[in-house]
């Protein structure tokens, strides 16, 4: 077991001269400021020697504080409950930094994002194209710099279209373009096929980039950001708002009453239940199994009504504020909640037994979309995608938040790495969530639901992770003056998961692509739309509708094969 101080000692003894400053504001969270030339050796040490996992990069404009741009690389170590945030100051006159993507592929998008938003270019990056900003955004205008106002709208400059990759020889391109019938949210995948087999893929997403971080820094106050954080994603909104509130509470040193933790835990687990049932329905719809769509969404409705009774709205509960929650869960609601949970558990068991023996589902899902364990670790995937490939990580057990320190979480890990393994992980989590809510209702202590606190001190940092239904969400907050944060960074769980798509669909059939991508449970804040272009005949042979039809026909074919 290693503590934060032991880690700092080990790093100081090796890199002493290069580390300018270190601090550990809360136990287990280490913040180091290092010189840019030792970034690669420090990152290598953390990743390989100490077994850390890369989370995200944060690019911050601290010119007003210390005259530099700062790129913070955040790593986490699940076994010892440690976070290590490595801050690298970059001179604004020459904004270049060493890229760590050659060390760990999971840093690919994070470094491109820093380039887009702050303008710090990663040296030796394998793919330094534009990632987030729109195709008509002018060059050299960086939104997250302090000189850029949040509502400034620069002139359109149409020549900055992202150059998509060219297909290899002999293959056709299938563009899956922004609007797709089954998967909400716009996104653009360009898939290269030879006949029926996939040989490559490229992706252009971020159609839903709304400038949330900039608004959080410029125009909204601490309490208002709780509500905008909830609308980052409509399905797992409470996760983001809890993560943000906990980060500010940690940075400011606010002690929340214990009852608050239990209320947040109950709402988080309710969200997990409704999110997994939603996914089950959508996955069934993609493979042509509309019965599952209707039945799982029917089972899901009582959860939405329950959330409405507790919080006033079916989703976007609006219950979190910095320092506590707005509404309590009074004792009169407990019997109703327990009844709903019992009904859901019963119906879920019936559904589970019914689909467990369904061999047509097995043949459709078992070896489809396989992600081997080493690929999963290389791209730092999170959530059920990682647990379905044998990687044992879960923030509820590894990094405590809300009331999870006092609750018993059973993490379900399956080998296999295909869509079926991920389905099993999600079904196990559903049953576990019901059990956790029952335990939390029983153990909930009495007390206040809002902490009393003074002004929030400026320029304090904190990192918090929360396990969303799709994986781990990371929020980094540096408090500022003027009742708003100086820098707020959000990393949604689908961010690393999407980076693994080209590797996952390589050598698969085109009909399996919708379900493979669907099994990642992409949080439609950024994905989908594919157009299939067959390179050989070079015409747009399929639309999104055709792709779904292909996916369903394959199910029929497999069913017929199994019955004969």
């Amino acid at each position, binding site marked *: 077991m290693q503590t934060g101080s032991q880690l700092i000692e080990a790093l100081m003894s090796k890199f002493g001269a290069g580390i300018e400053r270190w601090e550990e504001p809360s136990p287990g969270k280490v913040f180091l400021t290092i010189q840019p030339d030792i970034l690669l050796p420090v990152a290598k040490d953390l990743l390989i020697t100490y077994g850390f996992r890369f989370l995200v990069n944060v690019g911050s404009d601290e010119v007003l504080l210390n005259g530099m741009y700062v790129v913070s690389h955040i790593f986490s170590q699940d076994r010892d409950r440690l976070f290590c945030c490595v801050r690298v100051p970059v001179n604004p006159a020459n904004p270049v930094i060493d890229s760590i993507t050659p060390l760990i592929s999971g840093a690919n998008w994070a470094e491109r994002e820093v380039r887009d938003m702050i303008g710090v270019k990663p040296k030796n990056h394998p793919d330094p194209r534009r990632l987030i*900003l*729109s*195709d*008509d*955004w002018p060059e050299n205008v960086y*939104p997250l710099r302090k000189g*850029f106002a*949040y*509502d*400034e*709208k*620069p002139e*359109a400059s149409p020549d900055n279209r992202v150059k998509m990759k060219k297909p290899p020889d002999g293959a056709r391109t299938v563009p899956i*373009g*922004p*609007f797709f*019938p*089954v998967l*909400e*949210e*716009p996104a653009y995948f360009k898939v290269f096929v030879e006949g029926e087999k996939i040989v490559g893929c490229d992706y252009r997403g*971020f*159609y*839903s*980039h*709304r*400038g*949330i971080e*900039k*608004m959080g820094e410029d125009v909204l106050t601490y309490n208002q950001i709780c*509500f*905008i954080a909830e*609308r*980052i*994603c*409509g*399905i797992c*909104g409470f996760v983001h708002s809890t993560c943000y509130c906990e980060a500010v509470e940690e940075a400011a040193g606010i002690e929340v009453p214990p009852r608050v933790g239990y209320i947040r835990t109950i709402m988080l687990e309710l969200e997990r239940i409704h999110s997994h049932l*939603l996914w089950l329905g959508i996955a069934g719809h993609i493979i042509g199994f509309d019965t599952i*769509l*209707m039945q799982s*969404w*029917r089972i899901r*409705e009582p959860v939405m009504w329950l959330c409405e009774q507790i919080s006033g*709205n*079916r*989703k*976007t509960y609006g219950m979190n504020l910095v320092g506590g929650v707005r509404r309590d869960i009074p004792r009169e609601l407990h019997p109703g909640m327990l009844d709903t949970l019992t009904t859901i558990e019963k119906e879920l068991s019936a559904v589970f037994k019914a689909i467990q023996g369904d061999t047509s589902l097995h043949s459709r899902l078992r070896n489809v979309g396989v992600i081997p364990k080493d690929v999963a670790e290389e791209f730092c995937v999170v959530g059920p995608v990682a647990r379905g490939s044998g990687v044992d990580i879960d923030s509820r057990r590894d990094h405590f938040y809300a009331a999870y320190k006092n609750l018993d979480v059973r993490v379900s890990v399956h080998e296999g790495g295909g869509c079926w393994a991920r389905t099993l992980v999600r079904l196990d989590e559903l049953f576990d969530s019901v059990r956790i809510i029952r335990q939390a209702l029983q153990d909930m202590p009495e007390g206040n639901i809002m902490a009393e606190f003074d002004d929030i001190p400026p320029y304090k940092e904190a990192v918090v992770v929360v396990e969303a239904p799709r994986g781990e969400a990371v929020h980094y907050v540096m408090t500022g003056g003027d009742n708003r944060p100086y820098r707020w960074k959000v990393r949604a769980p689908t961010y690393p998961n999407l980076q693994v798509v080209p590797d996952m669909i390589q050598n698969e059939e085109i009909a399996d692509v919708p379900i493979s991508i669907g099994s990642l449970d992409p*949080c*439609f*804040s950024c994905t989908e739309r594919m157009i299939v272009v067959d390179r050989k005949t070079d015409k747009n042979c399929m*639309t*999104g*509708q055709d792709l*779904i039809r292909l996916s369903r026909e394959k199910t029929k074919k497999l069913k017929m094969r199994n019955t004969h």
Partner: protein
Amino acid sequence: MFKTLLQKSFKKSIWVYHTNAGACNGCDIEVINVLTPYYDAERFGIKLVGSPRYADALLVSGPVTRQVLPALLKLYESVPDPKLVIAVGSCAAGGGIWHDSYNILGGVDNVLPVNYYIPGCPPRPEAILHGVAVALGLVPKKISPVVHKEEKIAKWMKS
């Protein structure tokens, strides 16, 4: 006159194409919820179609981002006339929380001609059903603007 023509053309059942122009998905999930057994829009003949060419109405959710704008305009053109555009949710109706952010062009009515608005964050499935019923002319709308000025008190204070 256009209204009666519209009502006549949509007397039977209306086929809807749903699109997300940069939203958080809350409204999209509620739209799909309308098809599930508890709310069941299909008993009114409202069907969600997979291609805009078969659609009578376009349900748009989300504020319009710069990136999605060209695709959205192309989509609007591919829906055949006569068509209805319904903006679902607070983001589509007026831009929502991010109406003045750098990457957002405001509500859908800054980009397309919107016929009906269904506010809510997200609107309940029943509210969406009501909204489509208002769009078809089956029920009257239930809200009206409020303007208040304290004339009486001002007059007395000034006298």
